[in-house]
């Protein structure tokens, strides 16, 4: 007889701080990871769209190179900001996370190889984009395909860790880790929901680049602004359809969380929807009035807010999936007071030092070059 859930038991070591501390750190760092990931992946989309899709022969390669040069740094940020949520998710959801990764072990392991290949590809495009735009375009395309596949593997893992009742059949049918979670009905819409968001944020990246070039090269900057602004609008409109698909693919009881059953989820869902509509109108208005600052600050801020609501909704959804098994009060807690404050101190110190580093480099002053 196979136990249908097979959830492993917790290890004997207590949580070294209250549960909410880890939850907060998980959400904050995951939010930052999502921002970086969206800029990186969306940037790659935009670079390719410019290289292969732009009608303007004058700016086609210029945008491509301009954006391609940013991607390695954005990928570095994505990875670096991804490590923290990877750590904190294991602290709190280890029983689910380890199990689902083992079930899809080979694809999960290949993430490393795909990521290294994609990373070097992005560097190739950044360094060789000027001299060999043709080759760089195709290499960038290949790298984007790799990071898209990595995202798909992540979506498989995250959806699988939420459904312990599916684990046993999958594992015993293939214990060697050659699995994905393709039978999960929410997998594809959920994944596309993330990718579409990344494309929209890629548009914002162009708007931000336009802002940086607004004073010195108005014509090019305006082109960037139009290109990025439109991409943002179209992707965000498409997001309504994809998001709707994701919503209806959820089991009914979970869908209803966002439609009244859970107050916080419903408020966030409504705020996210309203924010999205507002962002489209704001961008459209900014484009019409040629107002780069509204687009760069207003829409970016609004989008960051929407992503934050999405991150919290995602967390509520996960806990709802795991509700039969996961209860935070089950964790024994023994706060490590001898080290936890040191972390907080170093964390704050680290943020300050990081800002000082960027400031001294001239990233916050528009008169200095801001190339990264």
């Amino acid at each position, binding site marked *: 007889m196979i136990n249908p859930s097979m959830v492993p038991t917790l290890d004997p070591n207590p949580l070294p701080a209250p549960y909410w501390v880890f939850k907060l750190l998980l959400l904050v760092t995951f939010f930052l990871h999502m921002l970086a990931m969206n800029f990186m992946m969306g940037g790659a989309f935009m670079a390719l769209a410019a290289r292969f899709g732009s009608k303007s022969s004058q700016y086609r390669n210029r945008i491509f190179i301009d954006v391609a040069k940013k991607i390695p740094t954005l990928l570095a940020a994505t*990875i670096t900001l991804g*490590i923290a949520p990877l750590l904190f998710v294991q602290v709190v959801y280890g029983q689910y996370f380890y199990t689902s990764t083992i079930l899809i072990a080979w694809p999960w392991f290949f993430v490393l190889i795909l990521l290294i290949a994609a990373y070097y590809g992005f560097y190739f495009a950044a360094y060789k984009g000027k001299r060999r735009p043709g080759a760089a375009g195709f290499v960038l395309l290949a790298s984007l395909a790799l990071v898209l596949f990595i995202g798909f593997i992540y979506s498989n893992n995250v959806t699988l860790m939420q459904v312990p009742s599916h684990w046993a059949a999958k594992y015993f049918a293939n214990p060697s880790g050659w699995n994905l979670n393709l039978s999960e009905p929410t997998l594809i819409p959920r994944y596309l929901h993330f990718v579409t968001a990344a494309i929209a944020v890629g548009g914002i990246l162009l708007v931000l680049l336009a802002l940086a070039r607004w004073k010195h090269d108005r014509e090019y900057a305006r082109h960037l602004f139009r290109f990025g602004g439109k991409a943002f609008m179209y992707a965000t409109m498409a997001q309504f359809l994809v998001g709707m698909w994701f919503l209806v693919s959820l089991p009914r009881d979970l869908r209803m969380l966002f439609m009244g059953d859970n107050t916080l989820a419903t408020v966030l869902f409504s705020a996210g929807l309203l924010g999205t509509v507002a962002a489209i109108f704001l961008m459209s208005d900014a484009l019409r009035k040629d107002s780069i600052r509204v687009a760069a600050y207003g829409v970016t801020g609004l989008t960051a807010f929407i992503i934050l609501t999405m991150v919290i909704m995602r967390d509520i959804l996960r806990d709802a999936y795991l509700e039969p098994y996961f209860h935070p009060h089950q964790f024994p807690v023994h706060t490590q007071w*001898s080290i936890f404050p040191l972390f907080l101190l170093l964390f704050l110190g680290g943020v300050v030092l990081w800002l000082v580093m960027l400031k*001294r480099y001239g990233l916050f002053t528009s008169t200095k070059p801001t190339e990264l």
Partner: protein
Amino acid sequence: MNYPIWDVAFGAGLLIALVAGLHVFVSHFAVGGGLFLVLTERKARRTNDTALLNWLKSHTKFFVLLTVVFGAVSGVGIWFTIGLISPTATSDLIHIFVWGWAIEWVFFFIEITAALLYLYGWDKLDPKLHEWYGWIYFIAAYASLVVINGIITFMLTPGSWIDVHKFWIGFFNPTYIPSTFFRTAICIALAGIYALITASVQKDLDLKARIVRWGALWTVPALITLPLFGWWYIRKIPAVLFASARGPMPTATHYAFLAWSLLVVTFVLTLWALLRPRHLHLAFALVIALVALGAMDSFEFVREDVRKPFVIENYLYDNSLYAASMPGDGGFTIDNLNTVGVLNAATWVQHRAVTPDNQVAVGREVFRVECQACHTADHYRGIHQLIEQRQWDPATVHAMLSGLSLMHNGIMPPFAGTDAERDALAAYVNSLQTITPNPATFTDGKLVFENNCSMCHQDRPDDMLFTGLDPNPKVAADSLKDLTSLFPLMPDLKLSEAQRTSLVRWINTQRPASQHAANQPAANRPGTAPEGGN
């Protein structure tokens, strides 16, 4: 068994070796190379050496492309891999040391940012500010080593953490300080070795010679300090653990030999490069790097091997069973498994009872959850090869499963489970046999020793097998009939009379005459019983 086992036919452990083995070689360079960059920049600017400065720019690019991409991703890769292969240990370590890891992440974040700004800032920043980024990079990188070192050394020597469960006690464990010095020296040595690689392709031979001499100035002294720190490190490892690397455990012993000898080779090759610095070829520089990689990975393998059978010494076995019962152990202890059985205690097994029909299938599952953390059926540390090489028949296999914890200086956990489960495991292991062994006919005493005794006993005069055996060959041979009466923890191995006689004859040729009667037929000597029995 609390978590599912990732069933990799060729051995999942090899994947950890691959990922970690390459990562450490880059990550230590990432630390030492950071100091190298900033001190070389300062040197080049003080001596107005433009050529050196230009080389350093390209070396920085090489450095960042290697450490920020491969180094960082393979570091995450170790985490990915240990979570797949040792989820219980990973979960334990994360709950014990999450704040250590979180602090390391802060340093890592600073480190990556500083590395990129240092690279991109070469032509943009004034020299002082540029060096400032270099220093921040190095300090953050070194700090991340200092933190992670506490967790790595904890796994080998948790010391009194086992009793008190306090973060800092586990962190500043007995091998922490020597290991910090040891790894610091490795970092500095590697900084020089990697410099040789990019120096070797320089066309300006004077410049090349300057870099080679400067690089060797880092590598040679650092290599000289390594034996000293290594000796200190070893002294802090409990002697009984490090004894494994002195003979009883073949892999640890071989890797210990490799570590020292490849260290010497690295040293000699670096000196050689220093003798003809203008002629250093890329291939030669790569050979030095490869040999250094071999030395370093051998050291890491020894560190991991002498810890066996534990993944956290004295706390958690490699197969994710806890060494002692404690609240929250989930029943995953040897004692509990011996009482309730593997099939009852494990979460991730399909069979819940042994029947005559499913014995081999149950044995396969027991093998997966108890043995596969280290062994495979047919490949890496393959049981199939192991039993065929030693010509173990089914009875021997069965008996040996009772003596696992004595083998090779105790590198294996004892079998845990009921008698029926042990029978099932033996049935599965025997099903892997593709030959028909016939050990009863063996009359070469040395071979009998190697096939049946050498897992636990060493071919040394001071081993108990040689010192403890009765001087009288006949009595000695008879005493081997029932091994458990000699020592209750020994496997109940049934050697044939021919095997016993030849074994005793061989043993007596190996020990001083004072310890045994001459190898004469027992009947010819006074005071012995007439021949008889079997």
